[in-house]
């Protein structure tokens, strides 16, 4: 009798493991193995010269030394952060404003569903297609330049993609347009989770809407805001598709819009898995640290 009972318990466990199999398999094949092999690769000299394979030869930390000896990586990191901040600041401001409006029942906004869908739409377009569209719109002889010349604002075409700040602004603008809808929905969810009795109490006490926003909404929204900020930072560090397509993979002018991942991609032309691996590991560490920060904050919230 006893034995049969135990058997039942074991068989329940078995199902638990069986249900885990698909996830574990996918995780091991597509995440863990590539992760480990990337780290292993970063210690080897391993690239292809034409059709000739060079290496793999174990060279210890030489790849890391080469990356850190070259000041370029800091320039690309700086480019990435600049473009991220330029996109993120307007994104969070607009999202907060829209979130506050959408979640405020006293405004009685009409067609909320419609607007929520519309602001999310740019995110559904592939980043590369979106980027291609901007490339065409803002090319030297493109529609934007034609309109500006016809309206008499410009005398001759402005080369948007040949100036540092106009290129960066375009990248930031695209990231902003693509992600503000997503952020709005996240913040809105956070705002709607706040106890309405707090707002009512504040109103009864005679607080203005601005005061309510700053004294009640924002402080209670802090965990969500931090979550949004960190996930956006992690995404921003991996910024690739938009600037890659917009600048044809060159990060022009003078690599001022080249991001870290675009730099990583440059090493893959010669299948340089060693340098590529080392760069990936560095990015992994940075991203990992940031994720730990998120983890810490979400734990605080539960307290």
């Amino acid at each position, binding site marked *: 009798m006893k034995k049969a009972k135990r058997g039942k318990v074991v068989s329940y466990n078995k199902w638990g493991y069986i249900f885990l199999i698909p996830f574990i398999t996918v995780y091991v094949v597509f995440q863990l193995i590539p992760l480990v092999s990337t780290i292993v690769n970063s210690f080897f000299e391993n690239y292809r010269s034409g059709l000739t394979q*060079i290496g793999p030869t174990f060279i210890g930390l030489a790849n890391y030394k080469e990356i850190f000896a070259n000041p370029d990586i800091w320039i690309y990191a700086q480019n990435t952060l600049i473009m991220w901040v330029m996109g993120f600041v307007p994104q969070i401001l607009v999202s907060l404003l829209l979130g506050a409006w959408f979640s405020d029942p006293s405004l009685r906004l009409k067609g909320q569903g419609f607007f929520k869908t519309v602001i999310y739409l740019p995110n559904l377009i592939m980043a590369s297609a979106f980027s291609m569209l901007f490339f065409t719109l803002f090319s030297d002889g493109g529609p934007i330049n034609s309109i500006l010349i016809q309206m008499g604002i410009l005398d001759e075409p402005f080369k948007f993609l040949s100036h540092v700040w106009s290129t960066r602004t375009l990248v930031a603008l695209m990231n902003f347009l693509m992600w503000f809808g997503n952020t709005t929905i996240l913040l809105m969810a956070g705002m709607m989770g706040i106890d309405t009795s707090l707002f009512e109490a504040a109103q009864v006490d005679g607080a203005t809407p601005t005061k309510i926003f700053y004294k009640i909404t924002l402080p209670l929204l802090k965990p969500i805001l931090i979550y949004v900020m960190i996930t956006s930072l992690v995404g921003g560090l991996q910024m690739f598709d938009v600037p890659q397509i917009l600048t044809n993979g060159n990060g022009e002018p003078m690599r001022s819009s080249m991001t870290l991942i675009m730099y990583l991609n*440059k090493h893959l032309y010669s299948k340089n898995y060693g340098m590529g691996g080392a760069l990936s590991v560095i990015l992994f560490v940075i991203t990992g640290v940031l994720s730990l920060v998120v983890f810490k904050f979400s734990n605080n919230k539960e307290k």
Partner: protein
Amino acid sequence: MKKKVLGALLVTTMLASMLAGCGGKSASNGKVLNIYCWNEEFKSRITDHYPNYTEVDATTGKIGEVTVKWNITPNENNAYQNNLDATLLKQEDAAADDKVDIFLVEADYALKYVDTEYTMAVKDLGITDQDVANQYKYTKDIVTDSKGVLKGLSWQGCPAVLFYNREVAKEVLGSDDPAVVQESVKDWDTFVATAATMDAAGYDMVSSVNDTYRVYSNNVSTKWVVDNKIQIDDNIMKWVDDSKKLVDAGYAGTHELWSDDWSKGFYPEGKVFCYFGPAWLVNFSMAADQPGSVGNLGQWGATVGPQGFFWGGTWICAATGTDNVELIKDIMLQMTTNEELMTGIVKKDDDFVNNKPAMEAMAADTSYSSAILGGQNPLAMYCEGAESIDLSNLSAFDQGCNEEFQKAMKNYFEGNADLNAALDLFYKAVEEKYPELTH
């Protein structure tokens, strides 16, 4: 050791006899011919001109018993080469019918393939020097490896000339006669001076400074890479100086080739005086089939220009390990040495083919003329150009160096960097692409 060798020999003999027994055919007569290329050009040449070829569908055809499989991967972002590299590296282990039999290469990266064991010597296919005696020397130089072995053949020659807009020439230079126009573009200093005249009349000399790049880069005296060190030739630096002048004075743009901005001059409203290119450019790439374009109106003229050069061209290479040696030999011989077939290509497709006597005969023939060029017969000019092309300075790194050099210099032309910074950027980008190089 000896035993092992003996064993291996025995096994090979056994396998060979088994295979021979099974197939009943010699190893050089596989059932599938795999052709790797990047566009439809070679396919349409084979379909139109190769005897016994029948098309089955878009990617297969038949030559007698043999099925021809077209593996077409576009050139963009190196996709063709990446795909070909991956397939060639697995060539040894692939089944006989999956092996690459023929692959096509372009001049910019021909050496990358030719200088390896993956490409078969033309001699090993049974093609003699005598067979290819009528071909232009430069077309053979490109696909000759570092040991002097010829490893590929081409049916076309791509000597390039300067195409000018006849209407603009009449208005600004007073005549659209090629000989008169040539006087205004006879060397680079005159070219830059003429650009000023064009600018005063409201025209750009060339659409982009990248148009002239190949003219300079084909006339260099050193290779891009010598002993794994990157070198910049004086003529390339002359391109930088001349181009900077053109851009600063507003005589030309900095667009990339093939971009929309670059193509504007294909139409009269684009206000561009000239383009540089071979026969295929003016015939296929400059909107000649669009009503209202300069080409459609027959208003291009051709003249030699400041320096002779060539652009493009496709070479047929046989992959080592192929099981269709006989068929490949026949395709190569038919397409690149059969005079009748080749003159057929000129008449039907306006191409310039790789057969010196045939082309010289057609150049002298007054009945042939090009409608796009306003009735001019440019073949004599091409013939002369093909003779003067010197390709002793090719290296396996040309494609990457040429691309990155133009990209880096754009920053200098547009004032985003000084010359040294732009050169540093070039070195950096090339060394990323080819980690073994230094400067």
